[in-house]
């Protein structure tokens, strides 16, 4: 992990894209503007962070903007990690997909779409990956109930539909 001063220098090099830096428990996080994700990752790749270890989503309910996407980068030569974070609101959860330059993000962005509803622009195949394709709702949002919805089986379907009307 770059230390606190290294992190500040890194953030300065990223220019206006970096909104905030957090150095917590010896781990570095840079909060960036969601529109700048591709240039930021490119810039970090030039600095040696060439391995995208993980792309995962977070729901910051009830703080706005709610949905966050965290990109964990690893520099294998210097054994350094840095996390890049961006936050989008729940009304317009769109982020550029980085799959073209970082092929590892393919399935991981699909999972974030499935679980949180973040739409990745220009993703080659944005479909649900873990839930059935016709599932409604994004399960890992904080306001989605843990028990989900009742599962309707074929023999109950008519009764359930009638009960709904």
């Amino acid at each position, binding site marked *: 992990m770059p230390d606190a001063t290294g992190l500040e220098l890194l953030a300065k090099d990223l220019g206006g894209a970096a909104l905030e830096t957090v150095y*917590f*428990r010896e*781990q570095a*996080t840079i909060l960036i503007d969601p529109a700048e994700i591709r240039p930021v990752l490119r810039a970090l790749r030039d600095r040696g962070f*060439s*391995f*995208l*270890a*993980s792309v*995962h*989503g*977070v*729901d910051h309910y009830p703080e706005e903007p709610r949905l966050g996407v*965290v990109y*964990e980068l690893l520099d*294998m030569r210097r*054994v350094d*990690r840095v*996390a890049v974070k961006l936050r989008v609101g729940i009304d317009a959860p769109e982020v550029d997909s980085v799959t073209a330059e*970082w*092929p*590892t*993000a*393919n*399935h*991981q962005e699909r*999972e974030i779409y499935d*679980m949180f509803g973040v739409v990745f622009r220009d993703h080659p195949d944005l479909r*649900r*990956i*873990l*839930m*059935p394709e016709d599932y409604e709702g994004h*399960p*890992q949002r*904080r306001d*989605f109930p*843990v028990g*989900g919805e009742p599962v309707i089986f074929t023999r109950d379907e008519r009764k359930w539909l009638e009960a709904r009307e």
Partner: protein
Amino acid sequence: MSSTEGPPLSAYRRREQSITLSPLEDHPDGAHADVTEELLTLNFGPHHPATHGVLRLLVTLQGEVVRDIKPIIGYVHTGIEKTAEDKAYWKVIPVVERMDYLSYYFNAMAYCGAVERLMEVEVPKRGQYLRVIHLELNRIASHLIWLGTSALDLGAVSIFLYCLRERELILDLFEMSSGARMHTRYFQVGGVIEDIPPGFPAKVREFLKIMPKRADEYGAILNSNEILLQRLRGTCPLDSETLLGLGVSGPLLRAAGNPWDLRKADPYSSYDDFDFKIPVGTVGDNYDRFAVRLAEIYESVKIIGQALDGLPEGPHITEDRKVALPPRHELATSMEALIHHFKLVTEGFRVPPGEVYNPIESPRGELGCYVRSDGSSKPARVHMRDPSFVNLQALAHMARGSYIADMVATVAMLDPILGGIDR
């Protein structure tokens, strides 16, 4: 196989030998130009004896040659991460353990490591060494099942029973230290839940004496099996650049020649006290993946031996009573211990707000745990970065242009664990 000598090859054989992506209109026999060739999409699984778990593959075939693979997953999705948000930190450990169900100690280690980092809790040396012993035993157990099921897929059925025989010994050791064979809840935040019983080191040493010999046996059986060698050598290689782009880590990356191992690069839990090597392959084909994992068993045996020799005295879990349960005999005498016990069991400890990502080296690659806490006693987000989930994306790149049988061997060598993939 040189095609310049010998009898002239038929058109079929010529096509077979050059598995390049030729356009379908380019039919070598002009006389049969009216025959149309189609790409066949075949559905493998989710119930299939050769996919490891409920993995569904949509395989696009041209004859017997694989042109494209689309994995479809989610058939054992359990909502572990969502369930974990609903439970106290302590109760998340059994839930998270069931994710990658062959390397349960690793799941618990990643999560406990993340929470320990958040809370700045120091794990005592004895706890760290005990963790290392159990982690490496679990690594051997995981590789044994991998070996057994892969050999089963490739046709060597008896290896499966031999590997299960060894695994029974390991599970006996787990039962001795924690009481359960699988999903033991042995790792807790701050250390391990209980110290090892008195006969444990002796039994482990007995096992360590047997294991290298048995691994030699497996190597001897499999390495002299002509069919296995033909199926594994030279099939589905992938270079380390593409693998890094795909985010692959672990034995797959090491088979391609890149010696990246988090135990050496970024040691956690006293791994830097031990002397062990990292097996690395050269070509990156299926045989290298197989050989790397087999060699890792020997290295794990070495690590366990060193950990047992150097096992320090001391507490097995942190002494901070706000995090770890006090020992039961204290409950009878100390009021504070009683109150701590009560608070820990009913509500659980509170974790200061923040986020951490804790990566460790699991038998399949980099297993990371991201924990975000909002200051209460339940985590706000637990995400496990599972290695198999990311490694699966490499399957399409590896198996493109090879035969179905090679694809089956590649899936076996990829070592996917669907519990981790689907979480």
